[in-house]
């Protein structure tokens, strides 16, 4: 290990992170799913919303002809339903592949927005003691509403769609981030270097951004990964229940399963395929999160 001396702390951290088996396995799986989402049009898919009444509810591997009505009249398109077709004759395989896009978009945007909002509110609550009580009471109240129920309540007042789903999942996540950031700020502000910075006359916003914020980053990255996983699940639940993203707009794993419910006894695979890929995705993100926690955040690693 003599060469390790020459490495910078950042390089050492990176080496530790990427050497962790959970990070490697989880990370590679996540990468594969991201690639699948990006290159969805090139993976032998057809337009996921293309429907054809003549080829409804076909079994996996069915080869036939889709009859599609366009402005110019009826067009016949040969098609192979790798995973069968749904009640409207749409290709389940294409829908599952394209469905990865929504899950990832929702997961990442929810994580980014909740971390951003939670960080600001948490910094304010942790640093400005006068506002702390008021802010934390509101956060306690929001946390008293079970997360999925809160998301359902929020989504009920908006029109169904991507934006309202993202808002609905962000609302229950923010208080958890606030709590985490606040507790870190409370301990960091007692550190000698923060006191030194205050004595040196550092302005409040610089103090928060330059001296306090960087020390909250590692736990926030870990927390963010877990938020991605739970946001993917909650989106799937909302869309499955028919409260999230409508099936005729964009395919998502949740709404594919929701649409397949009524025919589950005859075509169980239409629920099981998207279900399995959803579970694998969430598992991959959770593994990545576990690995990052073990390597980046030793305090939490000891606890669980």
């Amino acid at each position, binding site marked *: 290990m003599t060469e390790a001396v020459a490495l910078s702390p950042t390089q050492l951290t990176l080496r530790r992170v990427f050497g962790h088996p959970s990070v490697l396995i989880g990370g590679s799986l996540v990468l594969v799913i991201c690639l699948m989402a990006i290159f969805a049009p090139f993976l032998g898919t057809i337009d996921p919303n293309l429907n054809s009444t003549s080829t409804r509810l076909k079994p996996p591997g069915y080869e036939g002809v889709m009859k599609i009505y366009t402005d110019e009249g009826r067009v016949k398109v040969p098609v192979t339903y790798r995973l069968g077709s749904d009640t409207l004759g749409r290709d389940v395989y294409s829908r599952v592949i394209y469905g990865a896009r929504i899950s990832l978009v929702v997961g990442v945007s929810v994580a980014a927005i909740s971390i951003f909002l939670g960080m600001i509110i948490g910094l304010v609550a942790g640093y400005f003691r006068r506002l702390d009580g008021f802010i934390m*009471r*509101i956060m*306690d*109240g*929001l946390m*008293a*509403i*079970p*997360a*999925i*129920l*809160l998301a*359902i*309540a*929020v*989504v*009920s*007042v*908006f029109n169904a769609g991507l934006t309202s789903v993202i808002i609905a999942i962000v609302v229950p996540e923010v208080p958890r981030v606030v709590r985490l950031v606040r507790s870190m700020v409370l301990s960091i502000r007692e550190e000698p270097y923060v006191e030194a910075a205050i004595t040196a006359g550092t302005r409040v916003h610089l103090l928060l951004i330059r001296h306090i914020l960087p020390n909250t980053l590692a736990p926030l990255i870990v927390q963010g990964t877990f938020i991605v*996983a739970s946001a993917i*699940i909650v989106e*799937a*639940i909302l869309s*499955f*229940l*028919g*409260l999230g993203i409508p099936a005729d707009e964009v395919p998502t794993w949740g709404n594919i*399963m929701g649409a397949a419910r009524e025919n*589950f*006894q005859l075509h*169980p695979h239409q*629920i*099981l395929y998207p*279900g*399995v890929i*959803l*579970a694998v995705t*969430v*598992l991959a993100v*959770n*593994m990545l999160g*576990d690995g990052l926690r073990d390597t980046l955040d030793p305090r939490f690693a000891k*606890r*669980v």
Partner: protein
Amino acid sequence: MAYYLLKRLIATIPVMLVVAVFIFLLLRLTPGDPAAMIAGDFASEAQVAEIREKLGLNDPLLVQFGIWIGNIFQGDLGESFFFKKQVTDLIMARIEPTLSLSVVTIILTVSIAVPMGVVAAYRQGTWLDRTVMAFSVLGFSIPVFVIGFAFIYIFSLELKWLPVQGYQRLSEGVGGWLKHLILPSLALSVIFVAFIARMTRTSVLEVLGEDYIRTARAKGQTETKVLVRHALRNAAVPIVTVIGFAFAILIGGVVVTESVFNIPGLGLLTVDAVLNRDFPTIQAVVLLFSMIYVLINLIIDLSYTVLDPRIRY
């Protein structure tokens, strides 16, 4: 103890107040006219005005809130727009299935998860421990409705052991009641088991290193007694705390599980209410579930004194 109880009860008031304000504002502060939204696209101007009057939307916000809260305290949760019934009656009719599902799930969870966690801790580092830990990561990642459908597929459609969906009231016989509840409870308990087994393992592991465990072994106590009486007893507080937190997951899971298994409980009521924009019902259910969640955690806080006599309030 009485003083502490009072203090804790008072501390729940601001929490429930925030919950109430949030639920109240949710409908009032939405973009657009809530009355028009409730009435739907095909309502006439007069119908919209009637709904606005009924909701009291013409009054100032604070007055509206006062009336709403006052009614809740009198047990009046309003009338459902969609079902055209008192929300209180709706909830009462739906409470049995949800309560049954929750209770059976909790019993299943605790009787599976706690032994799993204890065994994993006792055999730390072996394949048994790794299996339990792997299950716990897995259980946390598979959404409850995927598990539910997989169970229906295996146990109802392929093996034909259990009914596919639905619910049978307890008054029609315990056997049928239980038959309908096994699959949904089992599906719902997976994530719960994952969570609690993991916490039990951590908690027991910490205790197993203590001196009194060595003492118990030295005096010739059997291993089972060491584990149950000395280790588990001392590890109980964090385990019970986690069970309390997990109630939030349970409540969310109930909504989903009832939809998958077509159980006519409060969860299904919530989904129907949202699909039909039935706001009095949505508000009532969210309020009720949050109250239950807060109360359960209060009870758990108080149970610490029973579990661990060292804790005194």
